């Protein structure tokens, strides 16, 4: 059971994540979009969307810090474990609450605005449930356990396990011994990774960093003539 939950399941999810993204990129660039609903409703979005997105970006940065950077590195920089956890708990709580509040507002907006509700697909709904769960359990860990509660030094078990997964040297026993809420957070998060390529979340990988450095006006020469090149799926001319 330990192996199934903490080795097989994560790898299945990660494989789905990577292969799925490749498949989606290869075959569905046309469907790869933010699917913005701003045209329908802008006033609530103006508050909720930046709140959620900046919050979740901070949360992402915190996970990089907490999971991928070994405790020995921060210690080498002269940051004590207590200081690290105090900062992490406070910053993590702020970011997590911002993301959760933003998401709650976005979902409420989506539910209550008829036009947006009607373009919400079942996949969207499933994704919001899982994303909401991940954030909620994460908040329990960060706010409930680490900021207000007894605290748990995840850098001795969860983080080591995650690095083990990524380095292909899984250490499932570490995770099996972690607190149940951390276990739940990890499981739901990996579920989200498995769903990722099939949802609107793919737009995360379109973050337009290249824009900062490119020329303003772009020129392209005309495509090869129809028939000269095999058209991409979905772009075949009629009658072919």
């Amino acid at each position, binding site marked *: 059971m330990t192996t199934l939950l903490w080795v097989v399941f994560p790898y299945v999810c990660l494989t789905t994540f990577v292969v799925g993204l490749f498949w989606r990129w290869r075959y569905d660039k046309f469907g790869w979009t933010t699917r913005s609903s701003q045209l329908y409703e*802008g006033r609530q979005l103006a508050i909720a969307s930046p709140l959620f997105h900046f919050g979740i970006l901070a949360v992402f940065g915190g996970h990089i810090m907490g999971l991928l950077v070994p405790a020995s590195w921060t210690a080498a920089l002269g940051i004590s474990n207590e200081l690290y956890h105090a900062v992490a708990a406070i910053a993590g709580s702020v970011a997590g609450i911002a993301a959760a509040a933003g998401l709650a507002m976005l979902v409420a907006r989506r539910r209550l605005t008829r036009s947006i509700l009607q373009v919400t697909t079942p996949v969207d709904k499933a994704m919001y449930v899982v994303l909401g769960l991940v954030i909620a359990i994460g908040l329990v860990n960060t706010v409930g356990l680490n900021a207000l509660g007894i605290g748990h030094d995840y850098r001795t078990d969860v983080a080591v396990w995650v690095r083990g997964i990524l380095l292909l040297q899984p250490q499932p026993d570490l995770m099996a011994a972690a607190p149940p809420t951390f276990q739940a957070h990890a499981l739901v998060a990996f579920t989200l990774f498995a769903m990722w390529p099939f949802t609107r979340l793919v737009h995360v990988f379109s973050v337009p960093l290249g824009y900062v450095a490119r020329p303003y006006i772009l*020129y392209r020469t005309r495509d090869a003539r129809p028939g000269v090149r095999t058209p991409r799926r979905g772009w075949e001319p009629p009658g072919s």
Partner: protein
Amino acid sequence: MRVMAQMGMVMNLDKCIGCHTCSVTCKQAWTNRSGVEYAWFNNVETRPGQGYPRRWEDQERWDGGWVRTSSGRLELRSGGRTKRMLRIFSNPTLPGLSDYYEPWTYDYDVLLSAPAQADTPVARPKSLITGEPMAIRWSANWDDDLGGAPEHAPSDPVLQKIGEQVRLSFEQAFMYYLPRICEHCLNPSCVAACPSGAMYKRAEDGIVLVDQDGCRGWRMCVSGCPYKKVYFNHKTGKAEKCTFCYPRVEAGQPTVCAETCVGRLRYIGLFLYDADRVLEAASVEDPRDLLEAQRSVILDPEDPAVIAGARAAGIAEDWIEAARHSPVYALTNRYRIALPLRPEWRTMPMVWYIPPLSPVVDAVAGSGFDGEDRATLFAAIGALRIPVEYLAEQFSAGDPAPVEHSLRVLAAMRSHMRRLNLGEPDGDAEAEAASVGFTPRALEDLFRLLAIAKYEDRYVIPAAHVELAASLDEAACSLDFEGGPGMGGYGTFGQPPSTPISVESFHLTRQRAAAERYADLPEVRGAVARAPEAGGEPSERKGGAR
């Protein structure tokens, strides 16, 4: 000098009767699909008026186009790259659906399926966005023909700029139609605003397009375009815009809007321009110099140096030949009567307009004078402050001189041709033509181009590649086949395999023949399904369950 070719258009506003044929045929060709019901790649608005989307010219609100910074560089009006990146999660200058209008259909089925009853059945309007019954409060041409002008026209940004005192008198004196498509600018701010790099200018003909596979739906182009001519397809989550009907133009045919224009007022042809000078010209300090700067970027296709440069740049001989006969070059640079729309936004728009003389003629005729008489008209052009000032705001950054020049040329042409046709004494034809910088012969040529307006004179369009032109097929470029991206489905999980047209029409024909009720007709089901796709499930049932 780096010579590039650019497809351009000129519209002779003097001849526009506001019939909206261009808009309707464009819509049928390009935006008769779910997700872009509200979008009009071509629209005709009555000026004075708010336009479509409402008050699109108000860049204080929409932040479109470019501005010149104090250091003389060009920057997008909405700010630098980083500033705009930080607004990516919620674009503060994106028009909402209410700024366009909420698209609707009618519950036509009621008219056919209602049982015998005392009252006439009524087809109620239903929103294509929510599927709910709705009250129609605005549309793409709500203030057509100055309808509701006392209420709506005061919100016209141009009127507000030229002042309060204008308002009362203009209603009797002044109205014209402004057909608008994408300007296919030389310096397009939509392209510059696109974070994904999905928008581009075609190197061959300068047509500005959106790569539907590259667009990620950030919506910055919609804000970046000061003309609000990029639209967000709310079903596919991608930007769409006027394509200058490139599949037709590549085959040497005019755009749909131009082809179907009953007033024959559109001209399509090539410009040769110096790509190296575009930025410099767009950056001149005084906005009133922008018109001349823009003209100066366009090269004389008869100049041997330009022709040599064009050949060096790989422009085909038939294209150079077409550029030499280009009606748009003649109207913008040779006769100098066509003006760009809103040059002060520094995008170097390539759809030009001949300002309308008719409002002046009407005003003169209305006051009992001879509206065709040159002297009277000339006096009126100088005296009628309102039309000229209004036109100058739209076409020459507020400088009345270019507008007055265009109107004087039109007036001189009218009186010259009247004299010829009525056999009136010659008088001083040479001197009168010279007073607007023309010869009598040139005025007659202009008359031929503007008034006779033969098809082959209006459209000088070289096919894409002569050697490949025969293999170009309009239909091959259409997005509108079943299951194709033009159908506006989600496409998230792959679309149904595209069906060959022959099979599709076979099924359509059979369904049409076998349909029991109007609502079951395939095309009607399609129209209803355009409305709500609740949870991704097609809504035929909603329409059919009445």
